[in-house]
């Protein structure tokens, strides 16, 4: 048997082996193999350099093109800042009250409920969004304390969760990915709850549990705290409402608060510390 005739047989065996590998890796894994971690660690610094370079250059160009707009934006931001400062004072007062209550609770139960862990900041270093999945890579991994299912938040709101981690990097699934679903409540009225999911065409849509719930276009949605994501993270605003044919569900289309095409810095919260 000569070499050329053997190739199709080897290819067939490899195809079967690879189909098995696909089967094994199709579900989320708690731990990656060392080889996957090494390869990721090796690529990470290069991806970071290229990404940071790209963002840097893009920012410069943007600034040049939009200098007049930026001036206007500056004025607007200043006004907003005044507004937020007054709100901050109010919030601080509320927080003091809360702290007092927490202290009371601790003395009563002696359980530590410190809430959020210190958030980990990270840069987006690669966008892995192929045609099927919406994922990206960040430059913080197990060494910085990022774990599987850590929650990722961007400047505007909820981004997603960590899917797998290497030593110095982590892959994140966006909430617009088709395997993602988030339980939400309407910010205006916390009793109105439902679920939004991503889809292959990168749109966020969902439904409310209550078919008679009174919602309007423009209502803001926040995470409800049921499931993986902690309560109170902004998801986005409702852009369209429709009732399903059987009148049993109110379907909504949601515009995410985060622009998934332009993410640079993200924050990661570890749910393991959050839970207890």
């Amino acid at each position: 048997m000569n070499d050329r005739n053997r190739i199709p047989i080897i290819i067939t065996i490899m195809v079967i082996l690879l189909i098995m590998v696909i089967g094994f890796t199709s579900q989320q894994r708690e731990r990656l193999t060392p080889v996957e971690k090494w390869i990721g660690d090796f690529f990470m610094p290069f991806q970071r350099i290229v990404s940071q370079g790209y963002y840097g250059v893009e920012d410069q160009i943007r600034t040049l093109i939009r200098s007049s707009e930026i001036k206007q934006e500056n004025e607007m931001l200043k006004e907003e800042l005044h507004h937020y400062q007054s709100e901050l004072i109010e919030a601080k007062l509320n927080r003091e009250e809360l702290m007092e209550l927490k202290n009371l609770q601790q003395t009563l139960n002696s359980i530590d409920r410190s809430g959020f862990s210190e958030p980990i900041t990270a840069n987006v270093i690669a966008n892995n969004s192929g045609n099927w999945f919406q994922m990206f890579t960040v430059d913080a991994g197990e060494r910085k304390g990022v774990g599987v299912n850590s929650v990722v938040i961007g400047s505007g709101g909820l981004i997603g969760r960590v899917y797998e981690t290497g030593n110095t990097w982590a892959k994140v699934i966006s909430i617009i990915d088709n395997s993602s679903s988030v339980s939400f409540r309407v910010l205006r009225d916390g009793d109105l709850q439902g679920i939004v999911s991503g889809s292959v065409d990168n749109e966020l849509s969902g439904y409310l549990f209550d078919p008679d719930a009174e919602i309007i276009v423009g209502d803001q949605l926040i995470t409800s705290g049921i499931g993986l994501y902690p309560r109170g993270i902004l998801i986005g605003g409702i852009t369209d409402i429709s009732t399903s044919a059987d009148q049993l569900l109110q379907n909504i289309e949601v515009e995410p608060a985060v622009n998934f095409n332009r993410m640079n810095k993200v924050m990661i919260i570890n749910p393991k510390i959050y839970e207890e």
Partner: protein
Amino acid sequence: MRRLFLGSLFFFSMIIESTFLSYLPFPSLVPNTTMILVICFALYYEEKNGAIIGFTAGLIKDMIVGRVVGISALTFMLIGFLVGYYNRKVFVENATTPFVLTAASTILHESIAFVAVFLMGYPIHVTMALNRIYLYQTIYNALVAVPIYFIMNQILHSHFLKKSY
């Protein structure tokens, strides 16, 4: 020297594909440069090496950008093998070669991914998939493939690589 150079081409392609090219303003439509390189190499090296190169490149790509390990390894290996086989049997060298081969390879690649994703139980909008993936992605890849093919052709047939083998 030769292997190092060719390996670094793939390395460079994968970095660019996952960073720079995916930030360009075609959201979630990224030219599959690594697959195009596999095709170029398979056209030069025939099916055995084409399959080996495709398998290796696909496996590494799966690990750095993919969610499921094995899909690119499987499809790139098949692409490397089939393109290499095509090259040995019926080779015509002109601009339509990379265009047609890349278009066909993209359809094969996305179809296998489609089946895998479907079997994993993810919801799929079929019309959307047909439109965006089979139409836009195929044309985008095929257009990008033509210049890459001619550059790679120059490099692979150049004196500098031949001598140092």
